Each structure stands twice: as C-alpha cells, then as structure tokens.
C-alpha cells in the first residue's frame, strides 16, 4: 500500500514537472516577446525591462530560475496587470472558481446519484426511459450551449435570474447549473449501470433471503457497492468543473480563475498563462492522485497499478 502511494505520488510529481517544463518552453517558443503587443518602447526601456525579468539570459538559465521560483510559490509578476504578482492574482481569483466548482460538484453528486438509483430501480419503466433520454441528451450538449441558452431563456427572456456578476445567491444558480449539467448527466448514467450491476449480484439475493428488509439491503448492500465507480469519476469531474469554468466564467462574466485564464490568453500575459496552467495542472493531478489512493483504500480488490 505504502509502495503504491509512493509510486503514484512520484508519478504525480513527474507529471507536474513535465507540464511545467512543457508550459515554459511552449510559451517561450511563441514568437514575439511579451512586450511585442505593447506600444513601441525604446530599446533602452526594453533592455531594462528584459534585464529586470531576466529575459536577457539564455533560455535554459531562465528555465532553471523559473522552476526554482515555482518551488517557492513565486510565479513571477503579471505582465499586463502592473505591480501584481501572478500568485496573488491566482490566490484572489481561485476561491471564486473553487466555490462555484465545489457547489457544482456537490449538486452533480446529490442529484446524479439518487436519480441514477431511481432509474435503476425502475428498470424498463417509463421513468427509467425518461431519465436515460434526458441523461443521454445531457452528455451531448456542450457547456457553452447550456450556458448561453440558459442565459437567454432565464436571464433575457423570462428575466428570472441575473446574468452578470456574482453578488447574491441568485447569481449562483445559472453558473452552477451550467457547470453541473454534464457531470450530473454522466453520474446518472454511471450510477444507473453500476446499480443495475449490483442489483443482479448473488449477495443481494442472499441478503433478501436472510430476511434483510428491502430498504436496508438497498442502502447497506447495493448503494455501498454501486457508488464505487462514482468515486473514480470524482477526479475527472473536478478537472471538468475547473476547466469548464473557462466557458462559464466567460459567459457569465464571473471574476474567477477560469475567466482570468481566458483573458490572459487574449492579452498574451505570458507569466499569467504559465502560472495559471501550472497551478491548475498541479491541482488536478493531485486531486486525481488523492482519488486513486482513496479508491484503493475503499476497495482493496482493485489493482490500479
């Protein structure tokens, strides 16, 4: 077990390292330095700026410095938002994204798991077919479609919900809905098939034959086993909600990290792009790592390596 955890941890660190390296060299491969889009600046000022940010040094040396700084949590200064450190921007924006993402993940689980169970228990009936149809459509609809159409119908047409910003609880409804749409549909399908699988198992019949009530057998035997695949989905789901927020935050103009990432790309704020990419990648890789370890603890039968 310890060996497994160490192995997975090393893999995770290696992945983060590769992503950081890749990001650094990709950003430096983009022709035109970070100041290219600015108004024409004098060669002296340019040289001074480059010296300040260490851009006059050979690339490999820059790389070493950058990697060393990252380890200290220093992602360098933002090139477009003068006087602000990338890490400060990330730390001020990330909680907003994390809050919406966290609520969306909870909504997806709280809706997806029961609905999936209901579908499985009513197999073949009308409610089951209706749930499958809705979930199948839910998987096919891209997040930007959910965002923009819900914004049109609930925000512009019916005027029920505000469309911009994030001040009252009402502002949260649409972004959370849009963000949890796909994961919910996915969980419903996953839960249904896994529940059907479990319900057909011998130990379920044994439990019923022993005289365990339907309710207890459902919760103690079926649900416990059927929920395992959902846990594996938590990792990808977190990745999805974090990256899905690029679109959601852009459409609903939410001051979160996803929107910040998109605007840093349009503004060519290299330091910001690098910092955000490495930060988000690290986060996702470690969430995946945690999920894998938790899964291994819960279900020792699974051999992930």
């Amino acid at each position, binding site marked *: 077990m310890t060996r497994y955890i160490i192995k997975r941890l090393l*893999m995770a660190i290696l992945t983060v390292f590769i992503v950081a390296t890749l990001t650094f060299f990709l950003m430096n491969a983009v022709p035109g330095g970070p100041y290219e889009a600015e108004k024409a600046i004098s060669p002296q000022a340019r040289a001074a700026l480059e010296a300040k940010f260490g851009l006059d040094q050979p690339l490999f040396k820059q790389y070493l410095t950058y990697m060393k700084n990252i380890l200290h949590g220093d992602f360098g200064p933002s090139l477009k938002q003068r006087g602000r450190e990338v890490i400060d921007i990330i730390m001020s924006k990330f909680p907003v994204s994390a809050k919406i993402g966290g609520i969306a993940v909870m909504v997806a689980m709280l809706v997806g798991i029961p609905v999936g169970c209901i579908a499985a228990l009513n197999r073949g009936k009308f409610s089951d077919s209706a749930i499958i149809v809705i979930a*199948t459509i839910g*998987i*096919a609809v891209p997040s*930007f479609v959910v965002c923009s159409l819900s914004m049109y119908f609930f925000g512009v047409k019916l005027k029920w919900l505000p469309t911009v910003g994030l001040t009252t609880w009402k502002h949260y409804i649409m972004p959370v809905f849009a963000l949890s749409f796909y994961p919910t549909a996915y969980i419903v399908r996953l839960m249904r098939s896994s529940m059907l699988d479990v319900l057909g198992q011998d130990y379920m019949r044994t439990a019923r034959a022993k005289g365990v009530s339907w309710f207890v057998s459902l919760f103690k035997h079926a649900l416990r086993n059927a929920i395992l695949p959902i846990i594996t989905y938590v990792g990808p789901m977190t990745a999805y909600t974090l990256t899905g927020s690029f679109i959601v935050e852009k459409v609903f103009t939410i001051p979160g990290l996803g929107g910040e990432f998109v605007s840093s*790309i349009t503004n060519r704020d290299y330091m910001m792009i690098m910092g955000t990419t490495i930060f988000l990648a690290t986060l996702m890789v470690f969430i995946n790592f945690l999920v894998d370890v938790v899964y291994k603890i819960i279900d020792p039968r699974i051999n992930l390596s």
Partner: protein
Amino acid sequence: MKKNPLSLQLNTDDFLPASEEEKQSLIIMRESVSFWKDSMRRLLKNKVAMVSLFFIILIMFFSFIVPSFYPYSYSQQQKGAENLFPMTYSKAEMERMEAGEKVFPHFLGTDKLGRDYAVRVMVGSRISLTVGLVAAVIILVIGSLYGSIAAFFGGWVDIIMMRIVDIIYTIPDVLLIVLLSFALKEPLNKLSERASFRWIGVVGPNLVSIFIVFALLYWVGMARIVRSQVLVLRESEYVTAARALGAGNGRIIRKHLLTNCIGTLIVTTTLQIPSSIFTESYLSFLGLGVAVPLPSLGSLASTAINGMATYPYLLIAPSVLISLIILSFNLFGDGLRDAFDPKMKK
C-alpha cells in the same frame, strides 16, 4: 432378414447407401453467418442507431454538398442586408423582387455584416465534422500503431511506452489544448508563408494546430485499448491453435488479431468523433479555433451571445445543431458498440 434378439450380428440395413432424401437433410440449411453480416444485422435492427445515422448523413449532406450550390457564400457580405430577420429581405432585394427577379430567401436571416446565416451555419458544421473525422483518423492511426507496437514487443519497450501514455493521460487535457493551440498559432502562420507549406494557409493554421493538438494528446485512450486487446488476443487459445496448425505471424495478425480488433477499433474511432467535435467547438467558443471569416459552430455561438436579446435565432441555430451532431454520433457509436461487441452491452 429375421434377427435373433440376442445375437451381436450387426443390422445390415444400417450400412445401406443413403437415399437422396437423407442426403438433403444433412446439408446445412443456412450459410454460416460471418462476423460482419451478424454485426450489420444487429446494427440495422437498432432503430436509435439508424435514426442517428440518418441524421449524420443528412447533416453531412447539408454541410458538405449544399453550400457548393447555395446562392450565397459564407463570406459574401451584402450591403444593406445587415441583421435581417429570418425570411425577410433587404431593400435592394425587395426592389429586385418587384422587378420580377427571384431572390433566394435568407432562412436564418443575416448577421451584422450582411452574410447569409444559414450558409454560415452549414459551413460551420462542415468545419466541426471535418475536425471530428480527421481527428478520429489521426487518433486511429497513431493510437493503434503505438498500442500494437507496445503489445507486440512487450517487456521493457512496453513498460516505457505505457508509462509515457500514463503521463499524457494524467495531464489535464483541456488546459494543454488551450495552451498548445495558443502557442502553435504564430509558428504555423509563419510556416504557411513558405512555399512548400502553402497548404497550411489553405486549410487554415488554426485548424492545423487543432489537428496537431489532437495528434499529440488524444491518441492515448486508443493506444491503451488497442494494447490490451492485442495482449488478450495474443494469449488466446485459438491463436495458439492456429500457431500449432502452422500458421505464420502474418496470417495470425491478418486473420486473427486484426479481425478481432476491428470491431473495437471502429467503435472507439466513432466515439472519438463527437469528443473531438466537442473540443473544437469549445476552443472556437473561446476564440482559439478557426480564424475569421471561416465560421465554426462554436465561434458562431460565441459571437451571437452579445446580440441574443434581439437575435436569439443566431444563437439557437448553431447551439442546437452542434448538440444534434454530438448526440447523433454518440448514439450511433453506442449502436455500433452494441452491434460489434454484444458483450459490452449494458
């Protein structure tokens, strides 16, 4: 002949030549059903898959064939015909109609530059479909080659190759796709200026960068599936039996490995198409997809958001179409899976 019941003498009647009637009964009534025929039969019976296939063909017809003879082109701007509502005409067109000329209606109106929106949506779905299909082929080629090489050589080669796959698998894909398509934009623009790389300019640098991104990142799933499939098949009894009967490597690969893999390959490739389309529309929506004036369903929706209070159909048309495309491919892929591999059916 009368027979003593206790005698061991054989009944000579049993050794008479068979009559024509008896011979007929021994002939196999039906031809044996081949793997392909059996799968196709199952597929044709699947109503959902057939309806999806019909939609896919319909959308392909409208996006690849109709724009070539459509009276408007996707980049043609008509002065005075800006922001027309569906089925309405501009002043100039009204005058022409009064003069007895026939004017082709704008089924979905026009956008703010006076371009016919219906043809833009059609060309947009052409981009989406092209991306989906080309990406699927790229992924199929790279993934299946990589996976089968890893499985074929085994040992150290396999371990190292699969570690690389594991690492690419854990890299958050959307993040890297956004980053790569941003980083590749400029170099490809530069490259397309050279004579031998003119084709990049024709296809569009952004489209090429999307393909490169898919080629770099998305084949890992395919590689894993192919590898595990080949590993299982290589060890299976009938391959051993074929080898014992003297079949060479070439025959085993052709007759046993390939034919048994092909179902999985087709299914995985088909299910890859919608996910590529998904990603392309995502990138286009963020402004990292195809470049103007070429439309894509993602960029059309993204532009339409600003004016959605007045012109909601500009938003709804591409949104519904992309959902329909992805849904059809998903359902058709599911149908293929059920047809080619009934064991996987849930």
